[in-house]
């Protein structure tokens, strides 16, 4: 296991490094000069030169790259060109909003999706199973931002039950939870579908296994066979799916955050991109990639812990 952990950790590090190289290359290949893009076409050559001097843009590429990596590994993500605040501060202020959204959305989805999938498998081909199946596909298929807009239309604009936008008053936990309900629901709905479908499929698969026949032959009740035996084994792929899904969500809540005007990592990067505020966009992306790789690594490790066959792959 130790060997597997080390190997998986090295892979994660290599991917993060590769992603940073790629990001740096992409920025180098950008058409136009960052200085003129930021300062506007009418900036005088002197202003451009002093800006390039300040940002280190006039140095050779390998020096720029070295500095870039050195700063990132020191936790220095640069400064916001508009407000001159450190990017790190902006990113870490935004991050909790995204993590809470992803975590609560996935949590709710798991709490509802797993029992739903297990029921659908237990009562296979019943009306409940069919309704779950159709609803799951429909909710998975409906784009997340469309779900977000429809929820906004129904519950914020028409019924006025929940606030339409924002992340809630800073420091006021209740208000923040109140602002979380709609975005969380928008995210959870689709994942309920994914998790229910996967659980149903895996449980049905497990029910054909020998150990289930043994349990039944021993006289274990059908309920116990399902919940104590089949569902338990079925949890292995479901849990790792939830882990990977959580990683996906950390970088995938952009649209939901934009619809609800929630000040998370996704909307931070998006607004920075729109304002051509490259240091903020870059810093946000680096953190997003880092988290994504980290969560994927933990998902793999937990999978390896539960299922030893994975380790030797």
């Amino acid at each position, binding site marked *: 296991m130790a060997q597997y952990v080390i190997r998986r950790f090295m*892979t994660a590090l*290599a*991917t*993060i490094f*590769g*992603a940073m*190289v*790629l*990001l740096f290359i*992409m*920025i180098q*290949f*950008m*058409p*136009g000069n960052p200085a003129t*893009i930021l300062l506007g076409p009418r900036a005088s050559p002197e202003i451009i030169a002093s800006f390039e001097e300040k940002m280190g843009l006039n140095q050779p590429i390998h020096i720029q790259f070295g500095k870039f990596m050195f700063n990132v590994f020191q936790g220095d993500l640069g400064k916001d060109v508009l407000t001159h605040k450190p990017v790190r501060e902006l990113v870490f202020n935004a991050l909790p909003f995204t993590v809470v959204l992803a975590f609560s959305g996935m949590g709710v989805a798991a709490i509802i999706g797993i029992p739903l999938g297990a029921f659908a498998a237990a009562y296979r081909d019943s009306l409940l199973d069919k309704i779950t199946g159709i609803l799951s*596909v*429909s909710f*998975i*298929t*409906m*784009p*997340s*931002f*469309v779900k977000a*807009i*429809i929820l*906004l*239309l129904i519950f914020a*604009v028409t019924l006025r039950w929940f606030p339409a936008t924002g992340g809630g008053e800073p420091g006021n936990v209740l208000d923040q939870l109140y602002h979380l309900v709609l975005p969380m629901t928008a995210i959870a709905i*689709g994942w309920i579908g*994914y998790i229910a*479908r*996967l659980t149903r*499929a*895996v449980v049905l*698969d497990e029910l054909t296994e020998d150990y289930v026949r043994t349990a039944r032959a021993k006289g274990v009740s059908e309920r116990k066979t399902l919940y104590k035996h089949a569902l338990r084994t079925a949890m292995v792929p479901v849990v790792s799916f939830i882990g*990977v*899904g959580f990683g*996906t969500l*950390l*970088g*995938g809540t*952009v*649209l939901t955050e*934009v*619809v609800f005007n929630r000040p998370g990592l*996704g909307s931070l*990067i*998006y607004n920075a*991109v*729109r304002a*051509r505020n490259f240091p903020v*966009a870059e810093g946000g*992306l680096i953190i*997003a*990639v880092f988290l*994504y*790789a980290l969560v994927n690594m933990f998902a793999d490790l937990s999978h390896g812990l539960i299922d030893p066959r994975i380790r030797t792959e």
Partner: protein
Amino acid sequence: MNIFRRIVTSYKTGMLHRILSSFSGSLGLVLITLIVIIAIFAPQLAPYSPTKIDVTNRLADPSFEHPFGTDQLGRDLLSRLIFGSRIALLVSLPAIGLGLVIGILLGATAGYSGGNLDNALLFFFDTIRAFPPLLLAITIIMLTGGSNLLVLIVVLGITRFPGYGRLVRAQSSQVSKKEFVMASEAAGSSTPRTLFRHIFPNAIGPVFINAAMDIPVMITFAAGLSFLGLGVPPPRPGWGRILRSGYSYIRTSPWMVIFGAIFLVIATLGFTFLGEALRDALDPKLKKSPQLQ
């Protein structure tokens, strides 16, 4: 009579029958046919020009003249949604095509060659996959300085090819250990010949199923980018852009959001149903693995 019987038998053993024998498969086929017909005959079907501005009649409610109402510039919403179907298909299908071409070429090369080249290509795939896809797309569009049809297709293709590449690599590394590949090499075939004649045809089945399942994902993705203002530039009517305008005027005229969502969901639902029926028909073993968007 004989020919008729042969047609019936070939239909019964064929793909189409297997797709149509499931309810969701037939529903998917119907919805997709509908969307494709709407896209092809858009100029004939649309009651107005999708870009004709009529400021005296802005944000109108649905009426006989404008069945779905009008947008903030008085453009007919129905016509815009009808033309929007063209953009949805024109972006998503070529993007998947591009992803497939790059993915298959690189994946098969990696799987067949093995060794360092294989490791390098795998690392390349994983590096791109380390970026959350939507954020990667937003970044590339930002760096290229603006979006148009071509940029969108390329960007969406870039988010797809590493996944396809990995899949093809796994398949082709299995296939390249088979006897007929060895026989081909022993007979003195060139590497491209072995690749194109023997490895590709046997390794690309699963990736095509995957690509079919990706069509709704790409339609969603393109609509999402267009919702963020990073899609096909105006005045062309993308569904995402229509939803964005609807979102801005959601308090006064919710029609744009409602009808826009209906069109988008019909397309994605249709392609999902069809894709799943296709997958079940071709490879029942894959049935239990749902896809991440």
